[in-house]
């Protein structure tokens, strides 16, 4: 029997190969954050304060879209198509299969964060990340929480047709109120309170520390990290409890 690690590596490489083969998905995945950066860079051109907000905002959005959005879609699709059920009938351990999917998503996160960092350095005058440790810790925390929440959300999506409505119904309001495109302090108080209780605003908060100079190191963002941690635990419980290997029968 091949070892789990060998299987995981093979499964990961297979997912990557197929990811690049689906050109439109690959294109949107990597061009979208660049388009956002270019547009907002043009809009707030010359206002460094606003650029300091946009770049970590887009980084946070990238973490959420590559994990939360992508996994909610993928898991719904794979479940409804019967791929999950078929895999479950083979000796491939379920954890290895799901691990391959998660690593595939996380690879996209890493690529997007790299794009944002390089763009921040080259076009937006941000320099290299002043606090790489803070950046790394928050990316890892954000990826974990959002991947689990994405898996959990897939359980609430009854069919693949309804996936875009459900996923965007969560994703769009969250990125709007969490300060992806503007400083969260311009958001009305009650909305800001909601945003701060959700995982994206704390993630952007921490990423700001990592990406923008003079926003403090890890120690200054521990509350944000704790909020993300709570969401990760919540996501883990829901992801495991509701998991279904089979298409919904209605």
């Amino acid at each position, binding site marked *: 029997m091949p070892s789990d690690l060998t*299987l995981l590596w093979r*499964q990961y490489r297979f997912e990557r190969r*197929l990811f690049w083969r689906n050109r439109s998905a690959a294109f949107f995945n990597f061009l979208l954050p660049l388009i956002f950066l270019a547009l907002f860079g043009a809009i707030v051109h010359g206002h460094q304060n606003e650029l300091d907000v946009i770049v970590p905002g887009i980084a946070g959005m990238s973490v959420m879209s590559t994990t939360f959005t992508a996994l909610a879609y993928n898991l719904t699709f*794979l479940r409804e198509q019967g*791929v999950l*059920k*078929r895999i479950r009938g*083979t*000796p491939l351990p379920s954890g290895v299969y799901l691990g391959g999917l998660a690593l595939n998503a996380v690879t996209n996160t890493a690529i997007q964060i790299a794009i944002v960092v390089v763009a921040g350095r080259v076009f937006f005058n941000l320099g290299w990340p002043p606090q790489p440790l803070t950046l790394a810790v928050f990316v890892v925390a954000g990826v974990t929480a959002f991947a689990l929440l994405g898996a959990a959300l897939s359980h609430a999506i009854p069919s693949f047709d309804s996936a875009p409505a459900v996923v965007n119904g969560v994703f769009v309001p969250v990125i709007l109120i969490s300060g992806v495109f503007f400083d969260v302090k311009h958001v009305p108080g009650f909305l800001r309170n909601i945003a701060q209780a959700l995982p994206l605003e704390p993630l952007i908060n921490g990423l700001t520390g990592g990406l923008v100079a003079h926003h403090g190191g890890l120690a200054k963002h521990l509350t944000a990290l704790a909020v993300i941690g709570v969401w990760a635990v919540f996501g883990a419980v829901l992801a495991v409890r509701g998991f279904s290997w089979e298409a919904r029968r209605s």
Partner: protein
Amino acid sequence: MASTQPAIEVRDLRKSYGELEAVRGIAFRVDRGEIYGLLGPNGAGKTSTVEILEGYRARSSGEVSVLGFDPGERTRELRARVGIVLQSSGIYSHATVLEVVAQFASFYPHPRDVDEVIELAGLGEKRADRTRTLSGGQRRRLDLALALIGDPELIFLDEPTTGFDPAARRGAWQTIRSLRELGKTVLLTTHYLDEAQELADRVAIIKGGRILAEGSPSELGVGRGSRYRVAYANGDGEPTVVETDDPTALLHELTGAALARGERLHSLSVTRPSLEDIYLELTADA
């Protein structure tokens, strides 16, 4: 030792979904190298039974052994020794036939040769094509290839030819027969009588979560006190059908009487009830 143990043994299997009792005390055994058919209308409990054996569902009660394992424990070793063809299941649509089969081969400790399995499934010409370009029948053949790639001892086929055109069905039957030649055990579910008759060594007719009859397709025709049917047209040309357990005596009597009257018996036939008759009789709603 392993070869004397049956491939599947089921005793008093029950499965309830809330109030609904889908399986109500089923027992059967499938010997090694046998093709065993579970035949019944939709909703009879076939799929519930098979999915318990495949390890997809937990049983409510009863004893189940598959290759000596309890499928409810979902042992990896058991999954490496069975192959499953589900009624419908998707697959990586951007991957080629060859890539998918090779990927699945990597899950198993002793996979068969990838090219050989693709040929066996009749997909040789499609090996470099993406799976989304396959027709419905080709997709089912890919399902079969994926079930065979691990070189399983036991293969579950759930409604393998549903939705096939007649030519594709014949082709699939040929492939399934070839599994017997490879020494595989096959558990087949179907709601097609001709399929059960063509392929299965033994058949269990299921309805309402119970086995109503079991035996070889030909035994089911004669066993259980079922009768011969003698049909003929008498002198007036009126068709007559008589059922009997003793066709020899009845024919002697009928032909003797006809000869004595100087008549001929037109359209004389003696038939045994077919599997179809048994099936319709057993599954008819009272």
